[in-house]
Structures are given as C-alpha cells and as structure tokens.
C-alpha cells in the first residue's frame, strides 16, 4: 500500500477527528463502544479514501461514511451493552461560561438527543454541524421536503421529551 497515501490519510483524519468523535458520542454509551465505533469508521474511511485522492469533497463524504458506519454497518459489540453513562465526561459543560439555567437546559438537551432513534440522531447531528437541508437530504437519501418535515417532527419530539 502506498506510504504517502497512508500518511496523508492519517494526518487528515488526525486533524479532523472531532467529527468522528462527535458521531461516536451520539451513537454509543460508553468509552469502549466509542473506541470500537471510531475504529470501524476509520477502517471504512480508509477503504473509501483511495477513491477521493485529491478530491476536495472528501470532507463531505467523511460525514456520509461516519454516519453510514454508525447507523448501518456497525455491529454493537457485547461490550457496548454495558451502559455506563459517560455523557457527563464528554459533554462537560463549563459552569463559568454559562449561567446555571442554560447549563441545566443543555444537559437535558444532550440527554434528549441521545434518546432519539438512529435516523433522528443523524438529522440532528447534521443540523448541529450547520448543514443545510439539501446536504442533509443528500446524506440521508431522502427528499429535501421530507428532511424538513422530519426535522420539525424531531423538534416536537425533543420538546415533549424536555417537557413531559
């Protein structure tokens, strides 16, 4: 295998690993599963990489590969069945930067998002990443109108989770 390509890929992923970590935090519940999923996404990204050498669109495809792996390809290992809450570690909210009510609200929001289904999480993820509805619909393979409808439903769902 081409050494330059390896180096280029690893460097690029090292610099952009946050996107992958964010997907992992959404779709897993403990650190073992997080690392497991990160590894699988890395393998899938690497497999897809030679096709996009020098292609600036790789950043867009990174979202697709990561979400596809998390939603469809990833087999939850036995280890991930152990639900050890580590959200508090990942989504550590700094008290000095927020007032108390905002902090409480954020905590509730993160918890609510994690309770959503796989597809809903993907939509929320892309929304939080500031992707427009065209990109969201392209990534999920649904129409733009349906992406909007779905997002509105998720907002309602989140609202009911937050205010039962």
């Amino acid at each position, binding site marked *: 295998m081409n050494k330059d390509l*390896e180096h280029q*890929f*690893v*460097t690029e*992923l*090292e610099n952009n*690993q*946050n996107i992958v*970590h*964010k997907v992992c*935090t959404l779709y897993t519940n403990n650190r073992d599963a*997080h690392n497991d999923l*990160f*590894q*699988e996404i*890395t*393998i*899938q990204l*690497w*497999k*897809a990489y030679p*096709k996009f050498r020098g292609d600036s669109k790789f950043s867009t*495809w990174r979202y*697709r*590969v990561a*979400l*596809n*792996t998390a*939603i*469809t*390809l*990833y*087999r939850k*290992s036995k280890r991930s069945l152990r639900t050890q809450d580590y959200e508090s570690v*990942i*989504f*550590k*909210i700094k008290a000095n930067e927020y007032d108390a009510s905002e902090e409480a609200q*954020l905590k509730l*929001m*993160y918890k609510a*998002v994690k309770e959503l*289904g*796989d*597809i809903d999480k*993907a939509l929320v993820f892309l*929304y*939080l*990443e*500031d992707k427009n509805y065209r990109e969201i619909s*392209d*990534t*999920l*393979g*649904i*129409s733009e109108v*349906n992406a909007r409808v779905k997002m509105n439903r998720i*907002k309602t769902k*989140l609202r009911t989770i*937050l205010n039962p």
Partner: protein
Amino acid sequence: MDELELLKKDWQRKREDLPKLSYDEIYRMLWKKSSSIVKWMFYISLIELAFWILLSALPFFWKNIQKTFNETYGNGDEIFFIVTTGLSILIVLIFIYYLFTSYKAISTVDSVKKLMESILRTRRIVRYYVAYNLIMAIIITLHTFYSLFTHDEKTIKLLDTVKDNGSEMRFWLVSGLIVLVGIGFMVGIIWLFYRLVYGILLKRLNKNYKELKRLEV
C-alpha cells in the same frame, strides 16, 4: 426552537473535551479488521454457498449413492439427473456473479438510504438462492418418491400387497402425510435458521430502513 439553537452553539464551540487520538493510534487502526455487518454477511453467504454446493455435489463423491441411484431409477432417468445437475451448476454460477457484483456495489459513500438498499438487495439475492435450493430439494424429494413407486421393485410389491388388503386409500394418506411433514420440517428448520442469523444481523438495519421509507409515504 430556542433550546436547539443553544445546543447548536454549544456543539460547535466546545472541542477540548472530546477524546484526542494520536497519529500512531489512528495509524494502527488502519490495519485492524473490520467487523461491519457487510463483512459478516459476506462470510455467511460464503458458508451458504459452500453448504449448498457441497450438498448437491455429495452424490458424485459417494459411489454407493450413485450405484443405488442407477439401480433404482434405471438408465432412463439419467437425463433428468444430468439436466438438473447442469442447471444447478449454471444457477450457482449466475448466483455467484450477482452476489459478488452486489457486494461490490455496497458503498459507504452512498447516502444512508442507498447503502441500506444495496445491503438489502445483496441479502435478497442470498434469499433467492436459498429459496431455489429449497424448491429443488422438494422437487427431487417428490421425484424420488414418484420413482420409488414406479421403478423400485420392492415398493411396487409392497403397493400390490396393500392393494390386496384393500387399505390402499389409507396407505396413500399416511405416506402422503409423511412426505409433507418431512418437507415441512426441512423447510421449517432452514427458515428458522435464516430468521435467526439474518434477524440478529439485520434487525437494526431493517428498522431504520423502514423509518426512512415511512417518510416517503
């Protein structure tokens, strides 16, 4: 929604509390084995392929079976045997071709929905192949019974005795029932096995795919 905008702001701002992997750690991951469901499906398909090919090839290696076969059916039925063997080899080849092209078509850079569709399509090809094998097995079983009653001397003699006894009707009912139960049992076992293997593997995918499909209605 205010809360979601608040979340978005927080989501895009904080970075330092996410794990940070080193170059070496990521590099090592490139050489790890994937454990994706596609890979599992691929291995299972290979086992299925090997199983059915071996099962249909067994009589060729088993001299006794071949001898009994010739004795039972006589030479007239050799054509039936050759035709079914040739046909099954052709169908296996076609199946292998479609299976591998559909595996190749599974791409992680497709949209979520398209990826799911290509996985389900691949799965469907395997299912057709299994259905084909089951149907062939049933045809061969029925044909064997038919040949027994028309060619096998012992069975014909037995049939004659039964006829003399006057319990012909009951004889047909009982043997028919045995054949049906036998076939039902075989199909049931295989069906259960597939439900179990693919059910476990594709449960989540099916659920998510249905959700995406539901959006379009």
